[in-house]
């Protein structure tokens, strides 16, 4: 039973299902939520799902983190470092945009007392 769970195939399947569920929860969130903070959180959920998806699919059974130490002298049998680097970058970018969005939201709330994005319609035809 445990061996079944320890196969790359199973892990990947679980990761795909889990991350995609999370992704489409976020998808549902941005489609239905009108509160700015909730919308931003939904986006964050989607992003996180993508991170999980990407990192998870690059794990294979038997591979270790790409760091050498006293026991491990060569860079073999290690997971791909590029997805990790990319995700690190994406996380920081996501954080930056989210923080900026929140600051816009705060300032807008101070001016108007609203945070419902469907009611932001002073700019319209």
């Amino acid at each position, binding site marked *: 039973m445990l061996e079944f769970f320890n196969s790359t195939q199973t892990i990947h399947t679980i990761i795909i299902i889990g991350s995609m569920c999370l992704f489409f929860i976020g*998808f549902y969130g*941005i*489609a239905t939520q009108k509160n700015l903070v909730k919308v931003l959180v939904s986006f964050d959920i989607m992003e996180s799902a993508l991170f999980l998806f990407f990192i998870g699919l690059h794990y294979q059974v038997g591979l270790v983190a790409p760091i050498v130490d006293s026991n491990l002298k060569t860079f073999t049998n290690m997971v791909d470092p590029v997805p990790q680097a990319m995700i690190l970058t994406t996380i920081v970018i996501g954080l930056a945009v989210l923080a900026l969005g929140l600051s816009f939201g705060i300032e807008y709330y101070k001016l108007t007392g609203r945070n419902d*994005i*469907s009611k*932001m319609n002073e700019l*319209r*035809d």
Partner: protein
Amino acid sequence: MNSIFLLLNLLPILFLYQFEGALHVSLPLTNEFTLSLIQTPLGSFFAYLSLISFLLVTIAQKSKKLSFSYYALQFLLSLAMLAIVLAGDFITFFIGWEIMTWSSYFIISKSNNMNIKSLQKYILFSLASAFSLIAGIVIAYSFANSFDFVAISNSFESMPFNIKVALIVLFSLSFFTKAGVIGLHYWVVDTYSKAPDLFSSILSAVMSKMGIYGLFLIYGNIIGYHELKIMFGTMLNGTDFGYVLAWIGVATSIIATFKAITQDEVKKLLAYSSIAQLGYIVAVIGFGTSYGVAGAMYHTLIHTIIKLLLFINVAAIVAQTGKNKFSELGGLIYRTPVSFVMLLIGIIGLAGMPPLGGFASKFMMYNAAIDTKFALILIGMLFSGAASFLYCYKLVYGIYLGHPTSKSLESTKEVSIHYLIPQIILALLLVLTGAFPGAFIKVINPILKEFSLSTIGYDGLGVMQSAVGNFNGFFIISAFVVIFLLILLLIWRIKSKAKNNLNRFDISYCGEVPTADTSLHYGYGFGTELYRIKFVNAILKRSSSHFYESLATQTKKTSELFSRMYYGNIHNTMIIILLFFSALFFLGVN
């Protein structure tokens, strides 16, 4: 300012004269485009026509204080027209065409009577004309792989039939719009009447001729009358195509003539008359015979002269009195006698009465219709020619005859000499064109050769040949002058015995004595009786404005409909993007 631009206007004439028909310039614009200027007989005819008109109008403009930008734009306009008529390829032609459009637009916008609606009308029709032109140009390009007139002309034969028809329709639509063929004339009346008074003369006399030039260029030069004959077949002595075009032209001239009679504004009457006269030209231009082309060409010249004369005359009167309606004018004959004589000469030409050039040109056109045996067309042309007497009479009566309608008119002085000089020149030209039709045939024969049509014979300068016999303009005019002098003598004799200087209230009707505010001038109501005639009533009641206004309304409705999508709800925008993604996903991936 005026003198500078007068000299500047002389420059292109000298330039053109210098080259003596040997002008051939080409400037590479990009790898694909070259601007080329070629002086053909057809082109130089129109070039001189437009340049001299500009010169005359500039003389008249001396009487007005106009800004630098006005003159500069007008000069640009004249250069643009020069580019059109001298163009050797469609890119040059189109560039000239568009510069003509926007420079005239900016001049028209300087008028005090102008409103946004009329300006919009003018520019949209002009642009529609230009866009239909460019559509034709690029379609022709796709077959000829060149914008050059000669190359397109050479490859025209090998194009598929539907493309040929499409090209003819697109080009014709474009030039018909400029010439104001009925249905596409919606902009003409408004623009002519609201433009600056002197500029109306250029609009009517020169700019509409660019449409005529375009038609000549397409039918005669690029497609060729011979090719038209092959494409559409012949009918009697003309072509099928010419017959259809003739009906369009005749309909234009009949409808516009009746519309002209019922106008109250002087310049609107002239505008409709302009449409009607151009209708004649359109009617004969497609005949594909020498007489047809010659008639169209002759009438182009005469119409330019007459319309310049009449518009300058009216502009002078409007400037002098500040009034531009028949119901407000009247009785100016004693106050502005020279203007009166000029207008009289103008309307004699306009009505096509002998002995002036107007008759010669009309004669040539009727002659063409006889030659091709298009009897119905001839009848239509004669009918509208006869009807045009009415508006000619209204023009002279409404302004100069009858009684002055207000006190201020009684103290009107003769108009400024700057208005009179060009009028006198034009009147002389009108007389000369009537007296020496042979000279004109001499000018036209190279053009006929260019269109590979047979030339027309002429006998000295005074006589031209036609299908129904020779036309001796010099004899006719001499006879008329003699008779005219005799009658003048007679009148003078009678008049010297008659009681002079009647008071305008020296009448009474139905036992009532008119008071100071009773209108004794019937210029206002002139033409209302025409509504009783069923046929005329049907023409006068209908208008293309309905169609265009409903088109505008439709556009606005569509715009409102589309604009409802952009109602600023970012939430829904997001949903739409997601739905669009989903739709494409299900369609594309599965």
